[in-house]
């Protein structure tokens, strides 16, 4: 199992979520976060935005589905401009459904 963390543009959230749902991944958790990338925020003239709002999507999927989820996010979150976000994938050892105690996704 893998945990996919995707930092995406807030305005792209709905499209990405709907596309994930369309690809068969309805389960996710989302958080509003503030952050910056290696460009250290955004400068517009004299105004500097040190941190920019992003949406963090947390999706736990089976190993074989990771590339599918990645490609869906890439396809729908990409605008080609700086600030499209990042995807991180980490290992998950165990997943438990509280209702049933199942140790599977």
């Amino acid at each position, binding site marked *: 199992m893998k945990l996919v963390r995707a930092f995406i543009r807030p305005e792209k959230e709905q*499209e990405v979520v709907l596309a994930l749902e369309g690809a068969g991944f309805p*389960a996710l958790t989302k958080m509003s976060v503030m952050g910056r990338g290696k460009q250290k925020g955004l400068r517009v003239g004299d105004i500097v935005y040190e941190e920019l709002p992003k949406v963090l999507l947390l999706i*736990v999927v089976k190993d074989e589905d990771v590339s599918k989820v990645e490609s869906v996010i890439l396809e729908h979150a990409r605008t080609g401009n700086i600030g499209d976000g990042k995807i991180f994938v980490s*290992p998950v*050892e165990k997943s438990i*459904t509280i*209702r049933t105690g199942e140790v599977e996704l």
Partner: protein
Amino acid sequence: MKEIWAIIRREKYAETKRALDKVGCGAMSVHSVWGRGKQGGFIMSEAESELALYATSAPKLVPTPSYLVAEGATITKPVVYVPKKLLVMVLPDDKVEKAIEAIIEVNRTGHYGDGKIFVLPVEDAITIRTGERREEALTGG
């Protein structure tokens, strides 16, 4: 060391915290998150979903446009997000099972939406104040 992510019902948060305190796993970060599981969010009656359309605080129901539906995938009904609490804890290996049991005991109602627990490996932990590393960082005073 393991990182435990517990996504639980908001109304069970206080009780869960007390239960975790009792087994000595009181240290945690808490986030308010929105989410949904494989049931696709609420299992709502028609009336409730009508209501959600007009409630300003509820996220709007948006049907998935057909061009976003992958081949072979099935979508049964539009979904909304459910507010949840996300507890993140880093625990030494021997406390992991105890914490999981405590969370399950408090949170299991038998209905959809009880939540999920994920266990992730952690490479290192550091207490900023003292500079302690690994297990010491979790158990040290």
